[in-house]
């Protein structure tokens, strides 16, 4: 039923599901300027460590960690940038990402969450007091005592019901205005009818008053609504957090001056400077400089490509070695990146409309209840010719069947499950993603950047002469190129000492060169040292005029990747590896990680086509990918996951996002979602059983307020407890 509620909200965190009132984000220091996402923190030591590391940075006035949201808010001088702080934390051993506080604006939605919580508290207060008074009536108070109890109950319940039930009345009214039925219509009708008949009964010193039922109804439904709201809010905040992860800035050159501007301010014809290691913010043409660019996210190639004056680059590629001046040809909405995002939007619109379990239940429920209670009222009116009795019966039927348990069944489970997943480092962006994940039978993985970190690791270094390795280390240390960095780290770890080199200089776009024992030495691209470009990632070392020595690399495995693949296999899922990389690289990698089904050199459209083909065969596909070339496939799959390092277009296209570097939560997520789905259907069964048992009493006119209260509380409690059983 959750689909009928239009609550959008703030970044409430599902992890604090146990606490009644985690009102997200309100904790940030009022004038917080910088915000960091800390997916890895989990204990008191982490809080202290992060806060101490941040406070030690000059210019930082205040730093406060929110463990529930895994964020830190920092108040600092204008000179301190979030990127610097993230770097400080990385060095201290905490994974940190910069967040854009502007995107995380919450005032409006935060207010709604508080509002709901306040109504819940008032309903609880009123329910407890009215219940207390009702106990006297149930235990046999008579005459004027009973009337007094009823009148006091009315005095508490009527204002409380008017105040607390407002969300239901508003929603029911907006549905009725467009001639539609939603869950709130029977709820509103039940509350109004119950209060109305009870008031009438009280005025006439009647025996039964349903004030307690009316307010208890409000309370239980508000509880379900609040949980539902929080899951939605955290899904929404997940989306916001992702948007905030990528802070789009560029260095614009104007009149010889460099200025940092937002990418949205750039226009075609502007010149931007892209530092080595930076992501290219726009589509453009290189006007000056030489470097290599990493296109892994765009195409899945693991081999960097050369870029020099005249080369065309697109947004999302990473500049590796030398600074580049890029003339903007397209920025913002016009970039290739955005065009792909638009394609994704189209693919998503075409995604089969998944009807959630709750919606299926609500579709049956709302008309059923009305028909039942109208029939009961008509039957009794024919039988007794007494309008008062028949209205009483109708109210009793509506109260008994009212979806307290139904309204709690789904929110309670999804809140519990998404809280568990959040603690494991997984954000759920879409409300129905968990239900869809439970149905998955095929898992398709992308290679570069998903199963691997996209960071190379040298192999076979021991085969080379020790002296050459010393030279290689000396050269590699002069460069910030990822291959050079990986090489120098690996050699250092082996205890190799760098050779002493003279005239060391980096030639951006080609490599590093120097003089060693009066002969030139070079480390760099194949073409530069006169070697054949290989089909695997490699760099070449040339000493003097001898033939160049190839140093080959493989991509390093993402932590948890092997575990995730093994666990999914153990769960009986079919696993496919699909990559845009070369055949050789993909095949050897697949053998290493233990995947049998492999498709290499796949174009983005082929990836999406393959996933769509699987879906057409009836398979429920989980796509895990990070690159732009995966986006269409992510959108085409039944459900999709991407790592936090993915481009925002891919993250936008996927249903869930892994916050940390580790891939192992995927297998857990599948397991948890299967359990969650089971709990949801169990809860529906439980709720139905209660209704089936209690409705005959109501129709037969035997439903006393006591039975109504018992049925309502018992069913709500059972479904909540069943939801908490989720492990």
């Amino acid at each position, binding site marked *: 039923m959750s689909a009928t509620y239009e609550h959008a909200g703030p970044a409430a965190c599902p*992890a*604090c599901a*146990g*606490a*009644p*009132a*985690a*009102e*997200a*984000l*309100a*904790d940030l220091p009022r004038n917080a300027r910088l915000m960091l996402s800390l997916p890895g923190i989990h*204990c*008191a*030591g982490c*809080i*202290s460590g992060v806060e*101490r590391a941040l406070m030690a940075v000059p210019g930082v006035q*205040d730093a*406060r*960690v*929110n*463990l*529930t*949201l895994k964020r830190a808010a920092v108040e600092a001088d204008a000179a301190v940038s979030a990127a610097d702080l993230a770097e400080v934390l990385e060095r201290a051993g905490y994974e940190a990402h910069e967040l854009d506080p502007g995107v995380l604006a919450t005032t409006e939605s935060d207010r709604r969450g*508080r509002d709901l*919580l*306040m109504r819940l*508290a*008032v309903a609880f*207060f009123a329910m*407890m*007091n009215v219940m*207390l*008074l009702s106990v006297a009536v149930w235990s046999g108070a008579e005459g004027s*005592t009973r009337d*007094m109890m009823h009148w*006091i109950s009315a005095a*508490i319940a009527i204002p409380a019901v008017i105040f607390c039930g407002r969300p239901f009345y508003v929603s029911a009214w907006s549905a009725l205005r467009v001639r539609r039925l939603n869950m709130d219509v029977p709820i509103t009708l039940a509350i109004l009818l119950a209060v109305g008949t009870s008031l009438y009964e009280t005025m006439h010193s009647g025996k039964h008053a349903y004030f307690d039922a009316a307010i208890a109804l409000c309370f239980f439904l508000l509880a379900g609504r609040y949980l539902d709201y929080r899951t939605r809010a955290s899904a929404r905040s997940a989306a916001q957090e992702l948007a905030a992860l990528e802070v789009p800035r560029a260095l614009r050159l104007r009149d010889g001056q460099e200025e940092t501007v937002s990418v949205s301010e750039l226009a075609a014809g502007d010149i931007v400077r892209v530092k080595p290691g930076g992501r290219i913010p726009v589509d453009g043409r290189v006007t000056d400089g030489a470097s290599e660019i990493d296109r892994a996210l765009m195409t899945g190639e693991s081999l960097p490509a050369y870029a020099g004056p005249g080369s065309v680059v697109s947004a999302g590629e990473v500049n590796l070695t030398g600074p580049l001046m890029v003339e903007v040809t397209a920025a913002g909405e016009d970039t290739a990146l955005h065009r792909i995002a638009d394609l994704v939007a189209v693919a998503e619109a075409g995604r089969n409309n998944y009807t959630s379990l709750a919606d299926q239940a609500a579709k049956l429920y709302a008309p059923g209840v009305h028909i039942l209670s109208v029939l009961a009222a008509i039957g009794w009116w024919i039988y007794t010719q007494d309008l008062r009795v028949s209205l009483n019966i109708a109210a009793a039927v509506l109260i008994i069947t009212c979806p307290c348990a139904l309204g709690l069944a789904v929110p309670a489970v999804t809140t519990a499950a998404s809280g568990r997943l959040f603690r494991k480092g997984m954000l759920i962006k879409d409300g129905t993603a968990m239900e869809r994940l439970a149905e998955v039978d095929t898992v398709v993985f992308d290679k570069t950047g998903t199963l691997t970190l996209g960071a190379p690791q040298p192999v076979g270094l021991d085969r080379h002469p020790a002296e050459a390795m010393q030279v290689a280390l000396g050269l590699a240390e002069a460069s910030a190129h990822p291959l050079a960095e990986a090489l120098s780290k690996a050699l250092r770890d082996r205890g190799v000492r760098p050779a002493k080199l003279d005239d060391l200089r980096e030639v951006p776009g080609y490599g590093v060169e120097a003089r060693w024992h009066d002969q030139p030495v070079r480390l760099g691209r194949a073409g530069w040292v006169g070697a054949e470009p290989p089909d695997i990632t490699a760099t070449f070392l040339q000493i003097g005029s001898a033939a160049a020595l190839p140093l080959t690399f493989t991509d390093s495995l993402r932590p948890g990747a092997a575990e995730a693949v093994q666990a999914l296999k153990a769960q009986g899922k079919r696993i496919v590896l699909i990559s845009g990389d070369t055949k050789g690289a993909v095949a050897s990698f697949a053998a290493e990680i233990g995947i049998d089904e492999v498709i290499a050199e796949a174009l983005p459209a082929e990836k999406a086509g393959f996933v769509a083909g699987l879906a057409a065969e009836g398979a429920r596909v989980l796509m895990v990918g990070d690159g732009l070339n995966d986006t269409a496939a992510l959108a085409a799959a039944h459900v999709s996951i991407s790592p936090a390092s993915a481009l925002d277009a891919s993250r936008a296209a996927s249903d869930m996002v892994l916050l940390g570097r580790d891939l192992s939560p995927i297998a857990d997520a599948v397991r948890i979602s299967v359990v969650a789905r089971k709990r949801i259907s169990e809860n529906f069964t439980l709720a139905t059983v209660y209704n089936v048992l209690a409705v005959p009493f109501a129709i037969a006119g035997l439903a006393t307020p006591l039975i109504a209260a018992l049925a309502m509380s018992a069913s709500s409690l059972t479904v909540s407890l069943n939801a908490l059983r989720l492990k």
Partner: protein
Amino acid sequence: MDVLGILIPVSLFLGGVGLAAFFWMLKRGQFDDPDGDAHRILRDDYDDAPKG
């Protein structure tokens, strides 16, 4: 049953106190970071002026 004349106002008053306390806690942001607060109390660094 005269005692009811006292007991009912008393119970309403106590309930009202609880409600007011809850609103106060909500306003003070005591539900903002339950996980963090649970862990903060266990950490070692002594703090003379803990942050609210």
